[in-house]
């Protein structure tokens, strides 16, 4: 589904990703872990199409198409979704209106009929249940005055409505208390299917107690230093990131 080959990217000549290789197959859940500043969020944002990053080398193929050649909205319409680490506030625009516009843009692109207000409301109510989201949040301005937990739930709620084929969750677990974490994890698990793929970007292992990944990758200094199964996440939790870094440095010296 997604193939990242030797991806280099940065901001203002400062290289953050230094040759990322990653392959994500349909039906899989991948966890990208790593210490602060390792480039996790950069990878998520580059895949979503954030224009402030310059891509200097490498390529990304998504369902056989050149992902990097696509505008952010084209990626979204092709089924790429990113749950934001810091969801953005849009005053005066209701959550429901915002999402309705997005969903209809995506449906239109896919040759589907746009949904009317009644169909929307039914869909929204159904999806809001998945993340236990208070329906009153639908009529409030996008993320405005939402608590940290509400914002993150809202991201997973949007994911539930938009039904992406590839979802990238950028530190969706950060800032959540244990109850909210479980709710969000339940939402992600409900949406996990054989037809889609999910990339979970996280600093901590705790979300992975609830969302069991098929693959775990450790990103260090802009490169994937180690990949493994779910056991790797537990090992990281126990031993920290330094040993991975040391081993990676060793390998580099030998190479």
């Amino acid at each position, binding site marked *: 589904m997604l193939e990242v080959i030797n991806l280099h990217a940065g901001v203002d000549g400062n290289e953050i990703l230094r040759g990322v290789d990653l392959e994500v197959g349909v039906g899989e859940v991948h966890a990208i872990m790593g210490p602060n500043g390792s480039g996790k969020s950069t990878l998520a944002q580059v895949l979503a199409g954030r224009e402030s990053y310059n891509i200097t080398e490498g390529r990304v193929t998504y369902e056989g198409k050149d992902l990097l050649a696509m505008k952010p909205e084209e990626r*979204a319409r092709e089924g790429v979704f990113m749950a934001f680490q810091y969801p953005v506030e849009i005053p005066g625009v209701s959550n429901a209106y915002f999402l309705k516009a997005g969903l209809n843009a995506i449906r239109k692109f896919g040759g589907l009929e746009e949904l009317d207000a009644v169909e929307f409301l039914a869909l929204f109510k159904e999806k809001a249940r998945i993340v236990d989201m208070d329906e009153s949040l639908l009529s409030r301005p996008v993320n405005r005055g939402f608590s940290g937990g509400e914002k993150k739930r809202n991201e997973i709620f949007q994911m539930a409505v938009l039904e992406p084929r590839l979802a990238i969750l950028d530190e969706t677990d950060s800032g959540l208390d244990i109850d909210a974490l479980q709710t969000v994890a339940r939402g992600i698990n409900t949406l996990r299917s054989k037809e889609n793929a999910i990339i979970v970007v996280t600093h901590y292992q705790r979300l992975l107690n609830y969302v069991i990944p098929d693959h775990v990758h450790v990103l260090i200094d802009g490169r994937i230093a180690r990949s493994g199964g779910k056991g790797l996440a537990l090992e990281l939790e126990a031993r920290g990131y330094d040993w991975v870094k040391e081993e990676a440095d060793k390998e580099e010296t030998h190479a």
Partner: protein
Amino acid sequence: MSQETNTTIESLATKEYKYGFETEIEYESFPKGLNEDIVRLISERKNEPQWMVEWRLKSHKHWAKLHRSDAEPKWANIKYGPIDYQDISYFSAPKKRPKYNTMEEVDPEIRKTFEKLGIPLQEQMILAGVAVDAVFDSVSVATTFRETLAKSGIIFCSMSDAIREHPDLVRKYLGSVVPYTDNFFASLNSAVFSDGSFAYVPKGVRCPMELSTYFRINAKQTGQFERTLIIAEEGAYVSYLEGCTAPMRDENQLHAAVVELIAHDNATIKYSTIQNWYPGDKEGKGGIYNFVTKRGKCSGKNSKITWTQVETGAAITWKYPGCILQGDNSVGEFYSVAVVNNYQQADTGTKMIHLGENTKSTVISKGISAGHGQNSYRGLVKINKGATDARNFSQCDSLLIGDQCGAHTFPYMEVKNTTARIEHEASTSKIGEDQIFYCKQRGLSTEDAVNMIVNGFCKEVFRELPMEFAVEAQKLLGISLEGSVG
């Protein structure tokens, strides 16, 4: 912002004014220049009574004095070259001047113009029940629903007709809120006003439909001087909609309208405007100079006047629709969205003059600046000695798009009664790249994202507009700001 976005912005910014075209209709224009003879000629051509020509002459005399002493207002935060008032033709009218009962009788050329403007006039009349007094340049060419309105005793007609058919009302109220000595542009208008709308709603009558007029400038180098007068008698209610678009021009065109509203005891007047005059090209060349004086008088107790304006057009906008709150418990409201893009300049706001006891006023102003546009809010809240327990709430929000534009706020407060309560809130925000990216990541185009954010910003004003106008206002905002994200 990235290279790609900038390119999109530039390509979008070059979109031309959507309503730029001319209609070929035969015109009769006066020679350029302004003097007593021209004033007399205007009055004569319109078959006006003697009192009217005298009022015009008095106004002209006053204006000429102001002109000689260089009394054109200079305090606004706008820049423009000198206007040569002798290089303007002060009257133009389509040569054929028949009267119509239905739209079908109207000149096909004119009907085509309305269609190009995207104003489905007939459909609107039928579906929305809007009586449209269509002003094409200076002369009314179609007046509809007059009969229905007449049944309730409502008079809705052109100002020219009102002067001839209802001289007592016009004489009583014309200049009673905006005297001909009020300011330079009001004096000019009083001398040479061409036409406009007149509405009179008698005691206890609730006007059964929205009254609407579409103005349109369509003759080269012809200033347009509209004059509107609306009177709501005791307990009456009327909602009036004014919308305008103008065709593309190279020369600057002067537009100096005057609107006067009078609300008696327990009467309510709602006056809504969408202004979309030609704003000039993206270099700042051409465009309409919109110097307008609009004022309402809440002369009766418990009366209410609401101004709602969406100003997207004109090279320069200079207008301060105000309320004189004379009657006890009277209410004045001002809701405004002003958009400037490219080199547009707007200096707009309101004046709330509290005279009566327990009077209330609300001011909600939303200024949007893009391109090299300069947007100023200028508002006066004045509480006079007798205005015990007066209250005012003002909120002025500015939204910036890009880093070449400007937003300015000039609030003035004069309080002479210690019981007054005045609140003023102001904010300035910028459309952020993160907001745009968030929308795009959910499948929206840059344009749709900007429209959504801007419409969200203006929501409090748009909800004051009648339904069909709210839709048009959103469309206009989109057109005005196309490609301005930066």
